[in-house]
Structures are given as structure tokens and as C-alpha cells.
């Protein structure tokens, strides 16, 4: 898992550990805390913290060190807090264990810290339970409980990957502030080079368990010495030339006044007011055009995509396909001509079907293609996505990137004219993201389908989109060509999104600003 890894963190320094999945970055972090999962064992090496070798320390001493000396924040905010214990009780656990304090003093410190992490009502939060909070707030609570003990070293394992762009920024800024206040060194594990450029001073690049390169962030990003590092940096999406694709004539899909409401929660004697996930949206997409929809979580972009494909029966408004009204009728032709690429490559393929069967399934509805013709089409599709000869494999034998390519092949096999891509690369590693995005662009150029690209990753959007639509609270707040939106944002929300997204400008090395 990890082989011959050596690096150092100075006091008060912010170090980024960068690597793709399988690089051993999480294993290394957990080894510091002695928290390796069953099956992984530390075989050799020293881990020196302030002169003490954590690798050989007795378990009791290790327990005393975890918390006040080394703290850790995990990736999944939804599962890192115990759902059965109140927030306050969990926060107080650490203090109660490591310091001798009266209960009232513990409570006071917890409330102070909650206020510090900008939780609005600390007293109520103290007694509440984790499920009442969003992902971003839970991460802040986690941060608060870890920093309460004023550790010397904070390990943050992809703490914001599961959060949307704006929240990511808030949580990380907070982390940096707190670290600076308490003089805590931070080790941030991430695969996002944008975050590295914004927050870290030095970086360590891991590849398959070994150290690939280490140095200052400036040097790693702008003059990498190793090939692998260069590959990582080059995999970052960047803006291509503004495409000359102008939607000529009638738009492919035209949406007017789309509204999707979900019933409010059923309380004991009354029902909460309906929540409008999509609240009156007008949108046109032309053939061959890629329109990106961006926004924070809860903006309605995912619901918009599903509604445009008529997957949500409770939607109201008008949808026109090639000028035809397809809102009410069960239009089979529309269903055949439109497709969806899902976000999670691990659950969008039926684990009990072989790859060839998965790609062939949509062709059930095309009776003209039968038997040998069908097999030929499937083989051609697999070849297009670079997975020729994979027809007999099972999904669990494939990596995330390969599975996503199968999902794309399945979506394209009927040569649809409209494709909705719902965060198609969010779950993938950096280099794989680049490959899949390139594949997507090539296929679109070749088959000319119109595409609705839903994403919170502004860098990916910058690469693939022709037009960009910004959504907030179910409404479109701004739309325009890609260059217009990225270079001259008008609406405040758009500006906030752009500011929050760590986008690297390669033309300007001075733009790399590391805080602290």
C-alpha cells in the first residue's frame, strides 16, 4: 500500500498530500494515528511527532496522543458523526477524556467553538442530533470538535470532496483560520490541485504508495520535475477555444415555465408547504450544443435534468422536442432520442449483467437492429469508448473510469439527439476525469447530440460547455456563453461560485495565492 514514504511537516505549516485513488495517501494518514483498518499493517518506518516515535509508542500513550496532539477530519460528513448521540455530547467526549474540566466549563468551550465555526445557534445545536444538519454544517461541527483539543497536527482526509463548491470554500477557509489561531500544522489529503494551489504551502505527490515528488506548491504546479506530476497537472481541465457551434434554427429542446414541486414533510397534524425544487425555468438547447448547468446543492439542477427527460411525472410546464409538445403525451420517440449519463459509475450498471448486455439493452426498443446487426453496433460502441473486446466482462471487474465509459456507451448506442449528463466525472480521479471529458467531447463532435451538462465542478464546465446556466434556489439567475459567464459574471451568486471554485490560471503563476 505504502512503500518507502518519507516527508516532514513543519510547525504551523500547511502541507498537501496529493494522489489519486490507490496512491496510499489515506493509508499514510491513518498510519500516523495508528488507525489502520483491519488488513493493513504498518511494517516498517518511523513516525516522529515532536521527537516522539508514534510508530513504536504503547497503545495507551497513543490513545492519550490522539486528540490533543493529532486530530483527524474525515471525508464523509454524513457518516462521521454518530447519529444516535447529540452533537454536544460528541463534542464534549474529547474534552472529557483528555482534560479535567467541570461539565459547565466543557459546555462553555463547546458553545464558544460552535460560534467560532459560524454555527448560527450554538445552544440549540449543542442539544440537536447530526441528522438535522447538512453536510457542510456537519463538517464544521467535526472541525469544531477536533480543534477543541487544540491539536498540534490536523489530518484532513478529503474533508470537502462531498460538499458543493461554496460550502467547500467556507469549510476550508475556516480550517485555515483555526489552524492559524492555534498554531496547528495541517496535512490536507486531496486530489484537487485547485485546493492545493489555494491553501497549501508545500505539497507531496504520491503515486501507488511511493513518493513521486515533493516541493513548494509553486514549484509542483508550475515547474514539476517528475513525469507523473506533470501528467496530473496537465489533466486539469482547461478552457479550449470558444466553439463556433451556434444553435441554428429551431432549438432541439425547448422548456418553458418548468416547475417541479415536492410535497412538504408530513408533520403530525399538518403538512409543510410544498417545496419547489425547480421554480419556473425557461431553457433552450440546440442540436450539437453543450449547455452546462451549475449551482450549489439544492439549486435544482439535478431535478431540472430529470424533469427535462420527463422522468418526473409531477413536473408542470411545457417541454418541446423538435418543436413538438412532449409534455403530456407518452412520446416514445422522445424517450428513444434522449438519454441520461449518471453520476455514480458504481451503481448505474446492473452488477448482474455483462458489459455487452448492458450496452445492448437500449437496442431492445429498436426492432430494426436485431441479431448480428445489434452485436455489430454494440462492438462498434465499445470500440468508440476505447473498451473494445470488453463485452464479456462483468462491471465489478472494471475501474470507475471504465464503468463510466460503459455508461456513456450505453447512453450513445441508440444515437440519441439529446443527452443529459448528471455530474458524469465527479466520482472519478483527476487523470481519468480528463480522459472521460475528452471522450465525451469527441463523441459529441461525432454524433452531434445536444447535451445538458450538470456539474458543480466549474473547471470541467469551463472545458466542455458552450453556454452556461447558473441556478439558485430552483431559478435561473444568469445564463450566457461560457466566456461571458467566466470572464464577466453579472449576478452575485455567479460571482460567489466563481470565487469559491479553486480554478488554476496557468497563464499567471502569481495567481497562486497560498494563505498563511
Amino acid at each position: 500500500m505504502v512503500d518507502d514514504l518519507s516527508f516532514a511537516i513543519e510547525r504551523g505549516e500547511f502541507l498537501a498530500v496529493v494522489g489519486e485513488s490507490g496512491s496510499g495517501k489515506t493509508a499514510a494518514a491513518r498510519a500516523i494515528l495508528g488507525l489502520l483498518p483491519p488488513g493493513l499493517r504498518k511494517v516498517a518506518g518511523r513516525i516522529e511527532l515532536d521527537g516522539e516515535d508514534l510508530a513504536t509508542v504503547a497503545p495507551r500513550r497513543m490513545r492519550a496522543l490522539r486528540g490533543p496532539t493529532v486530530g483527524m477530519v474525515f471525508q464523509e460528513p454524513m457518516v462521521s458523526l454518530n447519529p444516535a448521540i447529540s452533537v454536544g455530547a460528541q463534542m464534549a467526549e474529547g474534552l472529557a477524556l483528555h482534560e479535567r474540566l467541570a461539565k459547565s466549563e466543557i459546555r462553555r468551550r463547546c458553545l464558544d467553538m460552535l460560534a467560532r465555526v459560524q454555527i448560527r445557534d450554538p445552544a440549540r445545536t449543542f442539544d440537536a442530533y447530526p441528522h438535522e444538519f447538512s453536510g457542510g454544517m456537519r463538517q464544521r461541527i467535526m472541525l469544531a470538535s477536533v480543534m477543541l483539543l487544540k491539536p498540534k497536527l490536523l489530518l484532513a482526509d478529503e474533508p470537502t470532496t462531498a460538499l458543493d463548491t461554496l460550502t467547500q470554500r467556507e469549510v476550508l477557509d475556516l480550517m485555515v483560520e483555526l489552524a492559524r489561531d492555534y498554531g496547528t500544522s495541517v496535512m490536507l489529503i486531496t486530489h484537487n490541485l485547485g485546493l492545493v494551489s489555494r491553501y497549501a504551502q508545500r505539497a507531496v505527490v504520491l503515486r501507488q504508495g511511493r513518493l513521486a515528488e515533493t516541493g513548494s506548491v509553486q514549484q509542483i504546479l508550475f515547474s514539476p520535475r517528475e513525469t507523473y506530476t506533470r501528467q496530473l497537472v496537465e489533466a486539469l481541465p482547461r478552457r479550449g477555444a470558444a466553439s463556433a457551434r451556434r444553435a441554428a434554427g429551431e432549438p432541439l429542446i425547448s422548456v418553458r415555465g418548468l416547475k417541479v414541486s415536492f410535497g412538504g414533510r408530513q408533520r403530525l397534524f399538518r403538512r409543510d408547504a410544498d417545496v419547489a425544487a425547480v421554480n419556473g425555468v425557461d431553457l433552450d438547447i440546440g442540436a450539437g450544443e453543450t449547455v452546462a448547468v451549475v449551482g450549489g446543492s439544492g439549486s435544482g439542477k439535478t431535478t431540472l435534468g430529470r424533469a427535462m427527460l420527463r422522468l418526473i411525472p409531477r413536473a408542470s410546464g411545457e417541454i418541446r422536442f423538435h418543436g413538438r409538445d412532449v409534455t403530456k403525451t407518452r412520446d416514445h420517440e422522445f424517450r428513444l432520442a434522449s438519454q441520461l449519463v449518471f453520476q455514480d459509475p458504481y451503481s448505474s450498471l446492473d452488477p448482474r449483467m455483462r458489459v455487452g448486455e448492458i450496452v445492448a439493452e437500449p437496442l431492445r426498443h429498436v426492432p430494426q437492429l436485431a441479431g448480428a446487426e445489434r452485436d455489430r453496433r454494440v462492438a462498434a460502441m465499445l470500440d468508440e469508448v476505447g473498451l473494445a473486446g470488453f463485452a464479456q466482462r462483468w462491471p465489478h471487474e472494471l475501474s470507475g473510469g471504465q464503468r463510466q465509459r460503459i455508461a456513456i456507451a450505453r447512453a450513445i448506442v441508440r444515437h440519441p439527439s439529446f443527452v443529459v449528463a448528471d455530474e458524469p466525472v465527479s466520482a472519478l480521479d483527476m487523470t481519468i476525469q480528463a480522459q472521460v471529458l475528452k471522450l465525451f467531447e469527441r463523441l459529441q463532435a461525432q454524433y452531434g447530440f445536444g447535451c445538458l451538462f450538470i456539474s458543480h465542478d466549474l473547471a470541467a464546465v469551463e472545458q466542455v460547455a458552450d453556454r452556461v446556466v447558473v441556478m439558485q434556489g430552483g431559478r435561473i439567475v444568469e445564463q450566457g456563453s461560457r466566456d461571458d459567464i467566466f470572464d464577466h459574471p453579472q449576478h452575485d451568486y455567479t460571482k460567489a461560485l466563481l470565487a469559491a471554485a479553486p480554478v488554476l490560471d496557468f497563464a499567471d503563476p502569481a495567481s497562486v495565492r497560498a494563505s498563511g
Partner: protein
Amino acid sequence: MRWRANTVIGGALTALALGTALTAAFWTPFDPLRVNLRARLQPPSSLYWLGTDEFGRDVLSRVMAGAGTSVVVALSTVALAISIGVVVGGVAGYLRGWTDRIIMAVNDALLAFPGILLALAMMIVLGANKSGLVLALGLAYIPSVARVVRGTVLSIREKEYIEASRVIGNSELYSMVRHVLPNAVAPVAVLATSMFGWVLLAESALSFLGLGVPPPAPTWGNMLAASRPYMETAAWLSIAPGLCIALTLLGINLLGDSLRDRLDPRMAHG
């Protein structure tokens, strides 16, 4: 790996039971029903390997025949319970809404009755014979299968590949049959093995109480019952069927455990 030991031992024991059942259909050392009053209550010997019972019938032959009966009853019951339970649970879990609520209400009402009591009541109606027993026990176990299947289906239907199937244009029925059911098989397979064990035990218990397959047809349960007066004088009469029940149950449980371990997604996706 731990499950390998389970598989080997469990598989061996289960195979032994099934093999005996199968053999008994064609051959037993002696006729299990033939009464021979001159050879009553003989201890195990080279002629009668497990001795004879109070009517002079060879215990080994009766145990083999009993295997046949018990195993056939258990298999039929499990097949019945699973086939109906999968449909009921699958439909309820996939369609949700009022269909789900009504089906589950009836299901839970049935679940509230202790299995054997329910089977007892139905035996009175259906008659004390093999098919009656199968129907009664099967009906008693359908609710548990339905519950498990419904739970599995509920979690599967949220998976994205089910939505993908809908996006492709497949009908709900097709999605359910082609995508949901094959993926729901794993927990059902494990349930089937443990259910086989419960049914075997239930049948033995009912026969022990005199409410299952009536004598003179041997089942392990009624052999055990008949051995009660002779426990001190002819211990082999209770040891033989008792040991058979215990070993078969052990084998099936071990097999079920290893099956469950092997089908555990964490082990399948390396």
C-alpha cells in the same frame, strides 16, 4: 478463509443427508415398514447396524426412509414459501404505495402467529398427511420470505441502474423482472438454506407431537417420539434420529453461513 471450512463440513453433512434421502428411494437394508416381532429392540449389531425398534423394524432403514420424507417435505416447503414469498415481497417492495401497505398488513398479521401454531391450525383443516404438512408449513413461512425480499427490493430499486432501465424506455414490469429480481437473489438464497433447517425442525417437532406425518411412515420426528418410553432401555432408538436431525441442521447452517459470506458484496468486489 473461514468460510472454506464451513463450506466443506456443511457441504459434506448436507450432501450426506440428501444422499441418504435419495438412496432410500431405491434401496434400504431392510424394509422400513416390515414388522418382525421376533427381533424387537435389538441393540446395534452386524445385522442391524443401528438396532431395531419396538416392532422389530430396522432403525437404519427407518432413518434412511425418514431422511427421504423429512428432506422432501422440507424442500417442497421451502420451494413453496420462496416462490410465493418472492412474488409477494417483490411486488410490495417495487410498487410501494397502497399495494405495499395492504400486502404488508396481511403479511404482518400472519407473521404474528407462531409458525408452528399456524401450521397446526392449518393441518386440522388440510388433514394430517405429507401434502397437508407442506402446505401448512409453507404458508407459515411465506411472511418471513416476503419481508426479507421486500427489504432487499426496497434498497435495490433506489440504485441508479434501475433508473437507467427506466430511462432506456423499459416498462416497470421488465425492470422488475430483468434488473431487480436477479439482484435480490443473494439474500433469498441464504434465507432458503436457513429456512430448510427451520422447516426440518418444525416438521420434526410436529411429528414428535403426533401432528405431522402419521406412523407407520417414518420421519425423524415421529421416530424420536416413539422412542420416549424406551430411553433407558433402548437408547439407540432416540440417538439415531436425534443425531440425524442435529447433524443435518448443523450441515445446513454451516452451508448457509458460507453462502452468506461468499455472497457478501464486500468480498465479491475485491
